[in-house]
């Protein structure tokens, strides 16, 4: 029913203002039609009224009105303005017929003229009320003059009409204005919604592009990557990890960390890997794990959001099988070099020394000098070989530091046994001093301590042209002791002090050619000292000499068995 009414009342136009007016007109037409029908019905229900004189005229008015309504309805479909104008004219005409002329001109029915005036603003245009107030005024005057009983036109009513027209005009105008503003607001809102929708779509597609690009990057890197969420469930893994672990990609994601760690192909370091997953911040990264026949290096980091909140972990696995193999080959090679190179050098050194010592019979001074030169050169060569081997050992983590009891006094004595001759040959005085506060027996690795001391003194002698080199062993405090090497050499420039402990570095400016060596001595000293949990520092002034200070923790013999610590194991 409502749909039917709606269809009847609807007008097919785009302009909202026109639409509103024409629909309102249709509604009025419908209302008028209903009133008309009700009137006719009530007329026929009371026979007394039917006999009245005015009835034929009344019926004629109604018929005109009915035809008018239908006609206007059709006109309204084509032109709202014309339809409204016609409707108002018909309405005015009907109004003129609703009562006796005298009553209309100046009596009980004068007020009915207000109806077309009020409606005209609504269905035609705001100022139309003035036109119909004029029309109504003319009607009243005409009716008054043409009436059988002459009456004076109701001038007050005419003024009233104009007042009503004014009010109608003002009201509809503001109504129109309000509607216009409302429509503008709506239009604005529509634009805004449309714009936001477009932006949202753009953002979404941009995010899709970024996500796709990230996925492409992840898919193409050679390292295996797996990401676990805060519940330790794998949410992402790349094809490289699938290749490395030989697990299908679909079996990697949506599984827990525990599933991953307990995989049967993982043949070593399961606990280290687990510790790394549980505590990536406090565990050393780059641990080695054996996965089937491969060796992988694992690095794990926590994934944090913008507020530093942990939202999971990311693990990266790199295939280092080849590197590990090369390392093993290098170790084997080093072992061979160590033996095959040192043995003949040792023989040269031994024979030269025996010649010099006269084991094979007396030799003259010149021959003795030559033998000494052979010894010196061989010794230099041996030192270089030893340094290279030591460096290789330290780097591969194979160098072990022992903890046994040793006597500082003996360390100094042994140092003199090796270095006195070298100092003497260069004409440099070597002084050694032992602090009485030092414990007579400490725990340490005598061979490595000796190596540190010899290297430092050897270095000091090498860079000192005249004057002296001194080595002091002293107690720093309750927990630490020091080996202090002071020389009167040329000193080390401040900028060079930063890198003299680096591998294969000597002070710039032809120092290698001048002093020999491959620049490993101090680097090895530093690494040995660090393996012994100590520190090394240098103080130097150009032209005045240098002081190298090694600070080590004092360990007193607690009667325990000598222990050997593997620095690499400690690191893991």
């Amino acid at each position, binding site marked *: 029913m409502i749909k039917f009414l709606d269809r009847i009342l609807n007008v097919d136009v785009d302009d909202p203002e026109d639409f509103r007016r024409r629909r309102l007109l249709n509604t009025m037409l419908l209302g008028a039609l209903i009133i008309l029908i009700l009137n006719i019905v009530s007329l026929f229900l009371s026979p007394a009224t039917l006999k009245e004189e005015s009835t034929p005229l009344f019926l004629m008015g109604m018929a005109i009105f009915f035809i008018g309504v239908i006609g206007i309805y059709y006109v309204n479909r084509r032109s709202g303005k014309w339809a409204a104008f016609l409707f108002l004219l018909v309405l005015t005409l009907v109004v003129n017929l609703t009562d006796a002329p005298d009553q209309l001109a100046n009596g009980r029915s004068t007020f009915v003229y207000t109806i077309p005036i009020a409606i005209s603003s609504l269905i035609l245009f705001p100022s139309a009320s003035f036109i119909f107030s004029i029309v109504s005024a003319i009607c009243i005057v005409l009716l008054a003059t043409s009436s059988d009983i002459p009456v004076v036109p109701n001038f007050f009513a005419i003024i009233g009409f104009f007042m009503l027209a004014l009010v109608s005009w003002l009201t509809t105008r503001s109504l129109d204005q309000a509607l216009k503003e409302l429509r503008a607001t709506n239009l604005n809102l529509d634009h805004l919604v449309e714009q936001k929708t477009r932006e949202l779509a753009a953002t979404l597609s941009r995010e899709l592009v970024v996500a796709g690009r990230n996925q492409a990057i992840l898919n193409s890197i050679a390292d295996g990557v797996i990401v676990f969420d805060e519940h330790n469930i794998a949410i992402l893994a790349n094809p490289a990890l699938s290749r490395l672990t030989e697990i299908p990609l679909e079996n990697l994601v949506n599984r827990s960390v525990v599933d991953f760690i307990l995989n049967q192909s993982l043949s070593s370091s399961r606990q280290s890997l687990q510790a790394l997953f549980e505590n990536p911040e406090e565990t050393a990264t780059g641990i080695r794990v054996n996965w089937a026949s491969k060796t992988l290096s694992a690095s794990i980091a926590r994934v944090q959001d913008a507020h530093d909140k942990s939202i999971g972990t990311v693990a990266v696995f790199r295939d280092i099988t080849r590197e590990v193999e090369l390392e093993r080959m290098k170790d084997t090679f080093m072992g061979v070099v160590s033996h095959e190179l040192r*043995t003949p050098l*040792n*023989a040269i050194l*031994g024979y030269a*020394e*025996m010649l010099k010592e006269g084991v094979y019979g007396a030799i003259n001074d010149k021959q003795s000098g030559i033998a000494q030169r052979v010894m010196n050169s061989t010794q230099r060569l041996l030192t270089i070989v030893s340094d290279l*081997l*030591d460096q290789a050992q330290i780097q591969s983590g194979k160098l072990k530091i022992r903890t046994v009891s040793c006597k500082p006094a003996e360390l100094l004595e042994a140092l003199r046994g090796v270095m006195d001759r070298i100092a003497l040959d260069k004409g440099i005085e070597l002084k050694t001093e032992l602090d009485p506060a030092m414990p007579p027996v400490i725990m340490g690795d005598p061979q490595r301590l000796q190596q540190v001391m010899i290297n430092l003194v050897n270095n000091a002698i090498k860079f000192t042209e005249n004057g002296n080199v001194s080595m002091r062993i002293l107690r720093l405090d309750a927990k630490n002791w020091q080996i202090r090497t002071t020389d009167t050499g040329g000193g080390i420039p401040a900028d060079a002090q930063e890198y003299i402990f680096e591998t294969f570095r000597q002070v710039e400016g032809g120092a290698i050619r001048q002093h020999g060596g491959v620049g490993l001595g101090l680097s090895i000293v530093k690494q040995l000292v660090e393996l012994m949990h100590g520190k090394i520092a240098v103080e130097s002034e150009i032209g005045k000499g240098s002081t190298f200070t090694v600070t080590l923790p004092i360990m007193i013999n607690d009667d325990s068995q000598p222990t050997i610590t593997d620095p690499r194991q400690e690191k893991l």
Partner: protein
Amino acid sequence: MNEPLALIIEDDEDLAEIFGQALTAAGYVTEIIRDGLAAQTRIKEITPAVITLDMHIPQISGDRLLQQIRGDARLSKTRVVVTTADAIMGENARGTADLVLIKPITFSQLRDLSARLRPRDR
């Protein structure tokens, strides 16, 4: 002759000669053996005051010989000087041997050290 016996187990001919000369100079009577199997037999027959033992020798490793010497009560007073170029093996032998010398070992070094190991110096 009152001089103590020094057994030199060393496969390298030159080093064996040098070690022999050094120990002679230190006052020992020396005997040189250049392979592990011969050494294994010989140490059952003699009681040297000092044995210099190379770790890399043919047939039986120096390591095993060292264990054997240490397991023999008769050789309890024998001082064993390990002479090796392999620092790792040297490290491993430190607990068992009396002295570990990493090659290069000079004539005078071995002469002086072994002189200190002579029985009368104990």
